[in-house]
């Protein structure tokens, strides 16, 4: 649970020794048995938020509570209930994966069976080469195993899908779904909309160091102010020039000859205007389709920036 979190970095030389406000009012909470996603562009403040929640950094203002305690003063008892996967992994390059996993497991009283976990995440396939030789996806799986081996109640995963090949991605996503089913509170960050759409029970959109929107994916994409479809496309003869003043609030494009796409907040009135214009020009489209509002539209509306 985080409320009104503020974090300053610095003093920063390029700002004449002033502090830079990295987080400026982040509030969020994560439930057990749910995947909570922090979605935002790079530099939005996701990692710093997680680090404050993990106790790796101290908040300058606001309240941070992890399982009811102050994470910055975490006791070993609290740390044992929390699994952490850092963005760069925090893995020692000269150690072998299985040796590291066994060592991390030895910090807990009743860890998961290392062999079982290693098999499940495919770590046994590369368990005996040093970590510096692993691919990005292999490192991510090892870091995930290290976060889970102590059987935590809460897991923090910072960009868990970064660098994953499609097969690793499926393994990792299936595991995250099991953790949720198992009653864990899973908190993860991502800049990938697809991750959020596939995994999230609840999404916080982070931008400019603030949580700017929150809700389930369904709630976020069904915002009442801008409800309705967000994209209309139709196919007809190529080279049709829609007048600029016909539907000025919509983005128009012709991505391929004869296929036209209108993006923006669509209303029935827009469709009526478009149909009248077709009729006036003697045009009858061969296909018309509309697509609902996506999480990307929500993100664009709020931050004015696009994600992948």
């Amino acid at each position, binding site marked *: 649970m985080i409320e009104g979190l503020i974090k300053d970095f610095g003093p920063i030389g390029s700002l004449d020794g002033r502090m830079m406000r990295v987080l400026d009012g982040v509030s969020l909470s994560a439930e057990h048995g749910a995947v909570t996603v922090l979605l935002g562009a790079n530099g939005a403040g996701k990692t710093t938020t997680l680090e404050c929640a*993990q*106790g*790796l950094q101290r908040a300058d203002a606001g309240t941070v509570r992890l399982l009811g305690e102050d994470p910055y003063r*975490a006791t*070993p*008892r609290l*740390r*044992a*209930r*929390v699994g*952490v996967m*850092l963005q*760069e*992994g*925090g*893995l*020692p*390059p*000269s*150690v072998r994966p299985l040796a590291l996993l066994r*060592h*991390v497991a*030895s*910090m*807990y*009283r*009743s860890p*998961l*069976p290392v062999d*079982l*976990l290693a*098999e*499940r995440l495919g770590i046994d396939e590369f368990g005996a080469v040093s970590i510096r030789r692993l691919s990005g996806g292999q490192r991510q799986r090892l*870091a995930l195993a*290290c976060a889970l081996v*102590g*059987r*935590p*109640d809460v897991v923090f995963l910072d960009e868990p899908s970064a660098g994953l090949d499609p097969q690793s991605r499926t393994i990792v996503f299936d*595991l995250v779904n*099991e*953790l949720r*089913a*198992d*009653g864990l509170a899973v908190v993860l960050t991502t800049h990938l909309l697809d991750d959020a759409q596939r995994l999230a029970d609840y999404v916080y959109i982070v931008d400019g160091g603030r949580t700017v929107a929150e809700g389930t994916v369904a709630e976020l994409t069904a915002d009442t102010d801008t409800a309705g479809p967000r994209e209309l496309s139709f196919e007809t003869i190529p080279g049709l020039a829609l007048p600029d003043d016909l539907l000025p609030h919509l983005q128009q494009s012709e991505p391929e000859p004869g296929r036209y796409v209108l993006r923006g907040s669509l209303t029935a009135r827009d469709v009526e205007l478009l149909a009248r214009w077709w009729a006036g020009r003697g045009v009858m489209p061969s296909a018309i389709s509309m697509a609902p509002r996506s999480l990307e539209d929500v993100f664009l509306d709020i931050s004015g920036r696009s994600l992948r």
Partner: protein
Amino acid sequence: MSPDKMGDLASAPRGTAHPASETPGGQRGSAAALGTRILRHGAYEMLGMLRNGEQLVLAIVLPLLALVALVVTPVLDAYGPGRIDVAAPGVLALCTMSTAFTGQGIATGFDRRYGVLRFLSTTPLGRSGLILGKAVAVAGVLTVQLLVVGGAAVLLGWSPDPGGIVAAAILLLLGSAAFTALGLLVAGTLRPEATLAVTNLLWILLAAAGGVIIPAQSLPEAVQTFVSALPSAALGDGLRSALIEGAFDPLACLVLLGWAALASLAAIRWFKWS
């Protein structure tokens, strides 16, 4: 993997909500005992140091070479009865610097760069366990060095004064503490490449002119007082007094204690974990 095995992995043996039979031996999310964590981490870091080729050269090979060189050359003839008796205590001081300062400092510096310190501090080991585990690892490697290098010295004819063994043990303990704290201070404030350069350079300078091998009193008078106040001279000269004459040097102990305290305070104040 069969579905029921996956069930094992993902099943929720938390608290009372699930059958205890699913979690033989304990509860989910609980830490191993404090002493266990520290000793396990100490053993893990010790093995890491002993497996690393460069560290082994620094910890074992160079001290052995120094020992042999000091016995076959007349460098130390002016300072005591037999070459090996003067050489061995100094080489043990050199071993302490190798492991506690240079070896440990470089390892910590790179662990810091790779985020290993941050990750381990989120496990039940925690920051204090991490530091105490490093101290255990230093003590463990130093024990191996004492056996190997001390054993070699005995083979070369070394007969330390038995009356000084306790004093020597106290000095080695204080020396490890001081140099471990200094190594952490360097590793926690400089980039790892700079830590590598600084700890190696200081190791060579102190070994040559810091009172480690050659007694501080034999240096030019202008620098004697300065060198005597260094932890290297306190350890080297203190060990020589203890193992040659069987004498306890309280001043050397105080100097080492002072360096250990100052370096620890500075490390607590300025050590950056990331």
